[in-house]
């Protein structure tokens, strides 16, 4: 009995101490969890602020220079980092096509609707190959014209003029296809007329000629969402008050396209001198009137009442059936030098009727910089490319980071099995590690065995190009390429396009840019067509009998189906004689064309086209030069000689206003201004025939919608009381976006701790109540039995 009691007592004591322990553990877990919850809820209080600010990021009517699809004048807005578009009063576009050369003159008139001084930025997107050479402006009553200068010097002249309160403008190339024109010291209520001229070449493919003019208008003046600015109190970290309480009352008017057409009239005239009898002339997206001047010349105007489509203006034309030229030679003499432009369309018969056999080596970059959407796009693109191969083709896949894997030991036939196998390999890739591109490139170029007879070797490189040893790679490509063509595919939102464009040029392939998932199918499709149907390779041009000229592009790229060979050249003498020879190879068949230089027809603007292409060639050869300053100097020399805006030269505007005769009234509202000789701004004032004089802006009554729009814009603008302050405001608007600088590490740790605490709590709670529960259930059972 005693022993029994003792045992029970001891067991009870042990159980009690166990219970005590469990209670403690549960309590501890509870504390941890409550603590975690408190921190979490604290973090969440910051979240509503987050949601509000993100909705403010794109307020209606506020734009950024990159949004602009057409020419626009931007003023700094009250939202730092954003701009507002100046009301565009009218636009006149005159396009002059003479043979292969397109000369475009754009004249636009804007209004400064504010009651203060501003510095504006005129943004104009252009086709990649355009050469900008002329800038003329009228600001209020002052006329200024651009002069070409080295970039730094131009900037100094501009800053100087700006600081002195003078009207000034500076046209710089930001990227090959984006030009910006800063305009200083625009006074209150002044109108601004900007006129720029540029030159480009007609596009030609399959006998179809085309030109394009950017007319897309970014969505403007949409109904405003709730606009709220968050002002963060530094001490508490929370938003306290809205600094501009009446902000949401500024409801910008909604412009429907019809009103917009009236408010912002666009006149567009194309004088099409094709140089051959014209067949069909078509505008894809806009209604036009086509007037026949003579068999080879048309005058095309936009139908006045037509609503401008929100698309680029595109004009295409063909020669009359059977009269399509297959070759052409034009020339221009400038400063004792002759500039030639030649094009030849290889005859259709030389194209091989069957698809050539191909040997493709795919190289995919799966380094750490590709992580996220980039690697997904690369995988999709590559899988698509592999699935398009036909069984006669042979292929291999190489992946690299700081290590490298060659998937098949050698090139294999693209049988369904091999394709499946390779696609599975590609799908399994993850982005990690460094970028050691050279070994992969060497493997692709050197170790894949000799090229089979009659086959085409193609290397397709998918990467973001985040590398530092570009020169080494270019050298490798040019030294070991052999007959292979290197195609680069740029992946991600900000790939190293410099590297990839040049690598493709050196490798005689093309560069394809894939910026988002949605572009994969379309862009890769276009690349496949090129890969599958090369028309002519090894193209070279030589002069027979004439002094060797400077030929661009150099080297000549391969031709694809329906494309002509187009080249420009500079010859030293004013009246050269001799022959221009172009040779190439279509499949196994050699091809050769000769043209007599003396018989070239005159064309204007060819020198500028040559200069523009020469600059491209110089940029492309940058990797071969030891010193970038040498390259800059070479480009500067060409650009200055031909009055072109380039990466190293800018147009800076000088005030050339004709001086007012002494005694004339200083500000008179109805005296028309005299335009400098040779200037033509008449069209943007809506008064045909008024060339030579323009009315003062105050004399013109603005239509009601314009006034309404002007008020809406003025309410968003940040205008300054003085010219000097205006430039400071403009400066504030150029700003740097900051990256995400929070990790989820703390969050992970917190959530992990909470999960553990939860599990312990439940476990401990259950263990604590287990005996009671068992007894309870047991009691129930016994009760039931009884």
């Amino acid at each position, binding site marked *: 009995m005693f022993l029994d009691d003792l045992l029970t007592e001891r067991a009870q004591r042990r159980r009690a101490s166990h219970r005590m322990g469990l209670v403690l553990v549960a309590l501890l877990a509870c504390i941890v969890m409550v603590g975690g919850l408190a921190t979490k809820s604290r973090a969440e209080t910051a979240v509503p602020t987050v949601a509000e600010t993100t909705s403010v990021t794109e307020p209606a009517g506020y734009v950024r220079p990159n949004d602009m699809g057409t020419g626009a004048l931007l003023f700094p807005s009250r939202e730092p980092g954003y701009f507002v578009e100046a009301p565009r009063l009218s636009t006149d576009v005159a396009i002059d096509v003479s043979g292969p050369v397109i000369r475009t003159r754009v004249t636009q008139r804007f209004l400064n609707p504010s009651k203060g001084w501003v510095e504006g930025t005129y943004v104009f997107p252009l086709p990649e190959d355009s050469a900008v050479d002329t800038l003329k402006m009228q600001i209020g009553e002052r006329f200024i014209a651009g002069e070409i200068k080295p970039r730094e010097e131009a900037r100094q002249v501009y800053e100087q003029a700006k600081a002195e309160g003078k009207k000034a403008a500076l046209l710089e190339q930001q990227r090959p296809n984006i030009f910006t024109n800063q305009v200083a010291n625009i006074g209150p209520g002044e109108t601004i007329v900007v006129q720029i001229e540029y030159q480009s070449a007609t596009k030609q493919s399959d006998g179809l000629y085309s030109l394009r003019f950017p007319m897309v208008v970014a969505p403007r003046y949409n109904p405003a969402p709730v606009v709220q600015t968050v002002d963060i109190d530094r001490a508490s970290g929370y938003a306290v008050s809205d600094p501009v309480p009446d902000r949401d009352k500024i409801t910008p008017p909604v412009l429907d396209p019809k009103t917009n057409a009236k408010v912002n009239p666009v006149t567009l005239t194309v004088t099409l001198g094709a140089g051959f009898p014209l067949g069909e002339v078509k505008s894809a997206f806009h209604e036009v009137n086509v007037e026949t001047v003579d068999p080879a010349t048309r005058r095309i105007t936009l139908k006045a009442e037509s609503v401008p489509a929100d698309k680029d203006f595109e004009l295409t034309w063909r020669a009359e059936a059977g009269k399509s030229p297959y070759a052409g030679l034009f020339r221009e003499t400038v400063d004792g030098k002759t500039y030639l432009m030649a094009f030849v369309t290889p005859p259709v018969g030389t194209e091989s009727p069957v698809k050539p056999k191909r040997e493709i080596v795919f190289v995919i970059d799966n380094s750490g910089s590709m*992580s996220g959407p980039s690697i997904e796009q690369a995988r999709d693109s590559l899988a698509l490319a592999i699935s398009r191969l036909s069984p006669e083709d042979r292929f291999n896949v190489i992946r690299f980071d700081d290590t490298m894997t060659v998937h098949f030991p050698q090139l294999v036939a693209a049988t369904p099995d091999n394709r499946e196998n390779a696609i599975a390999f590609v799908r399994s890739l993850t982005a990690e590690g460094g970028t050691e591109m050279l070994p992969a490139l060497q493997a692709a170029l050197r170790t894949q065995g000799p090229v089979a007879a009659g086959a085409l070797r193609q290397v397709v490189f998918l990467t973001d190009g985040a590398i530092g040893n570009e020169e080494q790679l270019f050298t490798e490509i040019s030294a070991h390429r052999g007959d292979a063509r290197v195609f680069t595919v740029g992946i991600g939102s900000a790939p190293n396009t410099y590297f990839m464009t040049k690598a493709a040029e050196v490798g005689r392939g093309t560069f394809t840019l894939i910026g988002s998932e949605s572009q994969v199918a379309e862009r890769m499709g276009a690349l496949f067509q090129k890969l599958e149907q090369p028309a002519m390779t090894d193209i070279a041009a030589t002069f027979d009998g004439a002094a060797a000229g400077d030929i661009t592009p150099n080297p000549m790229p391969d031709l694809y189906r329906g494309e002509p060979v187009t080249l420009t050249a500079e010859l030293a003498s004013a009246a050269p004689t001799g022959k221009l020879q172009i040779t190439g190879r279509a499949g196994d068949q050699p091809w050769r064309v000769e043209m007599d230089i003396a018989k070239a027809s005159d064309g204007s603007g060819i020198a500028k086209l040559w200069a523009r292409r020469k600059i491209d060639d110089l940029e492309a050869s940058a990797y071969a030069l030891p010193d970038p300053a040498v390259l800059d100097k070479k480009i500067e020399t060409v650009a200055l000689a031909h009055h072109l805006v380039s990466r190293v030269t800018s147009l800076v505007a000088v005030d050339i206003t004709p001086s007012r005769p002494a005694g004339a009234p200083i500000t008179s509202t109805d005296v028309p201004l005299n335009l400098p000789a040779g200037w033509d701004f008449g069209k943007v004032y809506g008064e045909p025939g008024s060339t030579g004089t323009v009315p003062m802006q105050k004399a013109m009554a603005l239509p009601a919608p314009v006034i309404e729009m002007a008020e809406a814009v003025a309410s968003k603008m940040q205008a300054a009381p003085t010219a000097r302050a205006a430039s400071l405001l403009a400066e504030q608007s150029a700003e740097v976006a900051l990256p995400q600088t929070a990790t989820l590490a703390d969050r992970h740790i917190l959530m992990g701790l909470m999960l553990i605490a939860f599990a312990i709590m439940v476990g401990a709670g259950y263990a604590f109540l287990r005996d009671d529960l068992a007894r309870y259930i047991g009691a129930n059972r016994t009760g039931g039995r009884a």
Partner: protein
Amino acid sequence: MSLDNRLQEPRPGLLSRLSAGETVLGALLLLIILVGLMLVGKGAYMKVKAELSQVLLERAFDARLAGDGHVRPWPWADFDTEARISAPRLGQSAIVLKGASGEALAFGPAWLVNTPQPGDPGTAVIAAHRDTHFRWLKDVRPGDLLEVTRADGAKLTFRAGEGRVAPWDRSGINAQAIGRHLVLATCFPFDATEHGPLRYILSAELIGDTGPDGTIARLSGSDGLTTLAAAAAVKSF
């Protein structure tokens, strides 16, 4: 794990004495604990990675300063070292990497390549994570000195100004501003555990510049340059 052992095995032969339902419950709890441990491990890994990598980066940067060219901190690293930044009063220092990709930011503060180099005319921007390398940024007081050693050997000293808070895409930082500025940026609020759009921005001004040879190369406060409204206004695309 020890806690959990104690729970699951208070007495020997526990498993045999558990009913089916209890076994399932036990397994479930064990699973939750495992997931929790993995999360804690993941978070801790990020922090440890951030700290440890700095040691290797330090070595690579020293090699660069010594003129050994571009030494990769470790063979599979996908970035270059660019500078060393330190806050002497706080006793903090870190190696700055080039280009603020998410990848680089995991290892160190990063200099944004679309801004000028620290010490060049304009505003250089260096960003880092608030919970690792720039945890000390909130403690920098106006007037504190910040030292930057560039890869070319130039030693620069900046004087910190006021900090402010702005959304990431409206930072108000002008890369072409007049004068020579340095901006250090990190996420805000400092103790939040979520991603957010706000950034804490600390600006600093250059006060002196010691060249690689130890001489004062130039003294360039902004005052000499401000009189001519000189800087590029709209250039950042």
